[in-house]
Structures are given as structure tokens and as C-alpha cells.
């Protein structure tokens, strides 16, 4: 009894650790959507009772948010869906049920053509924003050492947003991309192009609309990517290199899976924002370019509320499908 032996850690330790893991799970879910399967599995193993108690508290915290959503999002949405099934009159609509608005839309070539163009625009915007946004976010989050510099550079990157939307978009038309715009002026000075035979004359075109959108929305990609990337454990990236990964394989195997939430969120942002765009299209595209958004807008201006509502509802459905596809795509990548 008086003998001393090396003490074994008490078995209690493991129990405590399991309990701690429980607490951390909440954060882990936020941090890693990909692991949901595993998390759910563990939750059933460990804490049924704790889960029930927390559910009510969470709901209570969420209540004001749900009220807000209900009032500002759900109510108008329901109203629009209702209107889309009502009959058009000269002064607006009457509450007579009809499917005419939709059947007219289904035969409207321009509408579907615009839908496709908008879709193409959105895909291009998402793709280009990823391509341009990732290096920016990567540099800011992982190559800039000091927090102050990170924040400073981030604010600089936000600079375009300090000016109003209109100023920014107008700058894209004649002053920048037009026949005698800055780009051609510079190229002429450099001797690459001449003002008589300019390389760029894409003011008021689909291309300029798309380019402008990328510039206008790229920060919606940079921001989520930046936050995801800055949460990465830098030593884990070093460990990957240490274990034999080159830059690319480290990116694929360690960085990409962990920033997938950011990629998805950024893509959804840009997809949704560009799909419904009508401001940029009107200002930069002028009369030459139209989109689903401009159609909705023109119908509203023409007091064709039910048709406008129906076009908006279809647009919304397209958005829902798009968002669904984006999230599925992200999950698919995970499983591969």
C-alpha cells in the first residue's frame, strides 16, 4: 500500500473530453458543413438529453430573426406569388384566379432568351469571381502576416464600394471601356491600338455588362473566401508541405475542402445577385442589352403587375434551382 507506482490518468478524463467535444460541436458544425454526417452520428452517441434542452433556447434566440424574416421576406413573397395568379386589368389587377400570366410567359421567346443569357452571365460571373477572388483572398489571409495590414488591405479592396453604384457603373461605360475610353487611350499611347481602330469598343454590350458585374460583385466572393482562409490552421498547411505535398496538392487536399463553405456562399451571393440584376444591365448595357430583371422591371413600369409577378416568380424558381445545384455540386466534390 505504501508503494508508489506511476499513476495512470484516471478514466474520468475520457468522459470529460467527450463532454467537451459536445460543447465544441456547435462551433464545429458552423466551421465544417462537410462533416455533418459525422457530427450527427456523434450527437446520437453522446447527448440526447442535452440536445433537447438546447433546442428551445436556440429557438427562443431565433424568434426575433424569424419574425423579421417573416415580415420582410416571406410576406412580400407570398403576395407576389398571389399576384402572379391574378388577372391583369388596366389599372393593375383584379383578384380573379388565372394561369394566363404563366401561359403567356411560357410562349414568350424573349423572356426565355433573356433567362438563358442571364444564366450564362451569372455562370461567367461566378466563375470569374472565383478565379479573381481566390488569389486576392489567399494573399490577404495567408500571405499578409499582420492583422493590421490584413484589415488595411481589405478596406482598400473595398474602396470601389465607397462610391455609389451609379458612379461605378457609369465609369464602366464610356470613360473606361468605350471607343475613346481610358483603356483605348492607354493602349493607343502604348502603341498597341489606335483610336481609329480600337481594340476595345464594348460599351453598351453584353461583354461590358459581364465585365462590370465581375468588378462590382467580386468582393462578395473575396469576403467569404477571406474569412474561411484566415480560419485555416497555417501550421496544418505547413504540415501538408512537410508530408510531401506540393502547392497544388496541398490546395486540393487541404485548402479547398476547408474553404468549400466560402466558395458555396460566395457563389450563391454572386449567382443570385447577377441573375436578378437590372441596374447594371440598364446603365451599362443601355438599350442594347436586356435581362430577366429588365423584363420584370419593364412590366412593372407598364402596370402589368400580374405578368411582372409571374416573371419574378419564375426567376425566383430559377434562383432556387441554381442555389440547389451549387450546394449539390459542393457536396458532390466532397464525396469524390
Amino acid at each position: 500500500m505504501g508503494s508508489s507506482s506511476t499513476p495512470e490518468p484516471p478514466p474520468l478524463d475520457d468522459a470529460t473530453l467527450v463532454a467537451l467535444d459536445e460543447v465544441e460541436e456547435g462551433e464545429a458544425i458552423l466551421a465544417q458543413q462537410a462533416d455533418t454526417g459525422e457530427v450527427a452520428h456523434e450527437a446520437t452517441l453522446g447527448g440526447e438529453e442535452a440536445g433537447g434542452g438546447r433546442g428551445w433556447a436556440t429557438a427562443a434566440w431565433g424568434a426575433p430573426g424569424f419574425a423579421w424574416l417573416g415580415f420582410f421576406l416571406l410576406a412580400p413573397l407570398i403576395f407576389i406569388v398571389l399576384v402572379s395568379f391574378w388577372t391583369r386589368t388596366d389599372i393593375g389587377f383584379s383578384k380573379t384566379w388565372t394561369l394566363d400570366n404563366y401561359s403567356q410567359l411560357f410562349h414568350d421567346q424573349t423572356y426565355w432568351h433573356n433567362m438563358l443569357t442571364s444564366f450564362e452571365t451569372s455562370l461567367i460571373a461566378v466563375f470569374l469571381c472565383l478565379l479573381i477572388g481566390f488569389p486576392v483572398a489567399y494573399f490577404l489571409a495567408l500571405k499578409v502576416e499582420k492583422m493590421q495590414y490584413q484589415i488595411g488591405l481589405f478596406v482598400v479592396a473595398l474602396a470601389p464600394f465607397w462610391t455609389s453604384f451609379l458612379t461605378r457603373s457609369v465609369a464602366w461605360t464610356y470613360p473606361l471601356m468605350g471607343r475613346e475610353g481610358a483603356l483605348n487611350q492607354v493602349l493607343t499611347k502604348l502603341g498597341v491600338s489606335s483610336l481609329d481602330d480600337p481594340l476595345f469598343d464594348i460599351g453598351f454590350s453584353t461583354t461590358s455588362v459581364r465585365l462590370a458585374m465581375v468588378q462590382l460583385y467580386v468582393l462578395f466572393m473575396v469576403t467569404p473566401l477571406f474569412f474561411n482562409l484566415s480560419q485555416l490552421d497555417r501550421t496544418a498547411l505547413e504540415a501538408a508541405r512537410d508530408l510531401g505535398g506540393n502547392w497544388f496538392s496541398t490546395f486540393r487536399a487541404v485548402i479547398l475542402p476547408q474553404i468549400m463553405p466560402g466558395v458555396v456562399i460566395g457563389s450563391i451571393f454572386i449567382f443570385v445577385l447577377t441573375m436578378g440584376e437590372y441596374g447594371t444591365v440598364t446603365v451599362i448595357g443601355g438599350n442594347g442589352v436586356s435581362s430577366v430583371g429588365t423584363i420584370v422591371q419593364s412590366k412593372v413600369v407598364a402596370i402589368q403587375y400580374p405578368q411582372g409577378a409571374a416573371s419574378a416568380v419564375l426567376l425566383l424558381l430559377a434562383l432556387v434551382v441554381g442555389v440547389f445545384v451549387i450546394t449539390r455540386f459542393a457536396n458532390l466534390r466532397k464525396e469524390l
Partner: protein
Amino acid sequence: MATEGAATAVPSSSGVSGLDLVKLTKVFPGGGVAVSDVNLHVDHGEYVVLLGPSGCGKTTTLRMIGGHEFPTSGDILLDGESLVYMQPHKRPTTTVFQHFALFPHRTVLQNVEFGLKMHGVGKEERRKTSLEALEMVGLEQLSDRYPRALSGGQQQRVALARVLVTKPTALLLDEPLGDLDRLLQLRMRVELRNLQRQLGLMFLHVTHNQEEALSMADRIVVMNDARIHQIADPLTIATKPATELVARFMGDNNIIRGKVVEREGTRLVVEDDHGVRVSVQAPGEATSVGEPAMVAVRAAAVEVVENVGGPALNSAECEIVFVEFLGDLVKLHLTVGGERMLAKVPGERYPSFRGREGEKIRISWREDDGQLLHA
């Protein structure tokens, strides 16, 4: 030869086999010198611990060897071949990082497999080798868990298994036990050391914990302020510190700072301002009478004798400041004219010292326990 224990070590002449750091220096932009003129030779199969206080450049040294930091000057040779311009993923070294740095989105097995995957090993073989490594660290039944569902000790073992599968020539460990609680630390010391013996690999382990270094190392490298102060086996480090810094850092040393008052052959007598006289054997030292000198005497080598008065050499009359009972030993905090001294006596003697603060007492030690220090 007594080259061990010298303040600066020259890399072994047989620099062909093993790891050699040659005049390795790292100056960070902004002028911070993290590592300065470090020379070290480590043999294959040797367990070397880099020990030093926080900020002394241990991590930076390890990162340079692993290829995560580029040296300002100097060279790193493995079996005679320079690693300096080699990318980290091409180096035959792997690192166990300070906080394990596991991949949170990969299961334990996937974490362990990672290195093999990067080296293009096929799926079947990858899995087999990884499970073997997990078995070696006793975690095969947790292979499907995610790292966050593991305890610190388990994460530690995953980190080990993850580097071991890549069959490194040298394993670099940065404070591998730092994140574990004390009991687990004690257990992992033994496990880690056994693992290293079993594998016969070169381990370079960084820590600021003296006890950990003493208990695990074949050789200890004591660093401070970007420089190496002493390279020696644990017994030498503990009993024959080469410099004042090592003596202070290893703890529980009495440092007597004074002037040489006598010299006969290799024997010096040093006397401090309070008249404490200590004799010491210092072969090969050229210190002459009148020059300043420092002598360390371990607290554990100090004997406490009750009778006040007695021989003046290797002895001192002190006042007890505080009696600290630590279970199996008693630390007597003493003072000689304001100079602090420390004596460690067995715990059973606590009753004879309890409550005697303020009283006078005499301590003495043997000449062999004195150790001349370098600045």
C-alpha cells in the same frame, strides 16, 4: 576526451553520417536574431533535445531544418548533403508541429494516409501501412474519428503516426508534449522514447521543460538568446553546467560569484563578497588569482549541519528564510548576507526544520560538487 560539456561544440569531424548544422544563423527582417552561429551534429538513431527558455530560437532552428524557414547563413547537412535549397516536401525530415496541426476535415486514417497519398502510394498499400502505424500508437480502433473528437493525447499519437508512415530519416518534434496535461506528459515521455528506440530513428525534440529534457534525451543542447550554451548528456547538464545561464536555467543551483583568491595546480579557491569560500577543480582553466570567477553548487549536493562555526572552506553560515516542504524533499531557502542560497534535504528531515525561519544554520559541500562556470 572531455569535449562534452564545452560551451561551444564543434561539429564532429565525421560529418558524413547524420545531421549537421554548420554556423546556422537566422536573422528575421527587422533585425531580430533568432538563431546565431549554431553548430550541432546529431547521429542517426540519437535522441537529441533542444532545451531553452521561450524565444531562444528553438522553433526557428527546427523550422530551418524542416525547410519552413530559410537560413540567413550557414548550412544544414544530412549525411553530408545540403538541405538548404530543398523544398520542405522533398526533404527526408518530417515535423510534428507544436499543436499537432492535424487536418480537421480528414479522419484519423485519412490524416495518417496523407503523406503516403502525397508520395503517390496506391490506395490499398496506403491503407495497410497507415493502419499499421495507427496500431503502433494504439489508435487503430479510432481510425474513423475526426481529430476534434480526440483527446489531446490521442491527437498527439495521430500526429506521430502521420509522420512515421512517411519513413523520415529525421523526426523533428516541436514541444510535442506541451499541449498535454502532466500525467499524460509523463506517460508520453516513456512512449515516445520507446518508439524512438524501436525505430532507431534520429529524433530532434524541442522543449523548454528541463525535466522532460533530462528524462528523454541522449544528449541535451541548451540554448539561450539564439546561441548554444552547452551540448552534453543529461547527467553532465544536470551536474556540471558549463555557463551561468545553464546553471540558472536548470534550476536549484547555488551560484557563488567572487574572485580567485588561491590557485594551486588545477585547484582554484574562489571567495565572494560575504566571505564564502569555495574550492573547485578546474583543469585547463587559465584563470589566475585576482580574476573574477563563478562557481555553481547544486542544492542537492549541499549538506546541512547544525553546529554553527566550523571550517570556512566549502561551507557557509546562513539564515533560514523559508522552509519549503515538497513531500519527498525539503527546500531550505537560505541567505548569506543578502545572497540567496538553496539546500535540498530529504523529506523525512522536515520535522527538524519546520518553523525555524530566522535561525542560523551551517551548510557545507564537497569540493567535487563545485563547478566553475563560464560567463
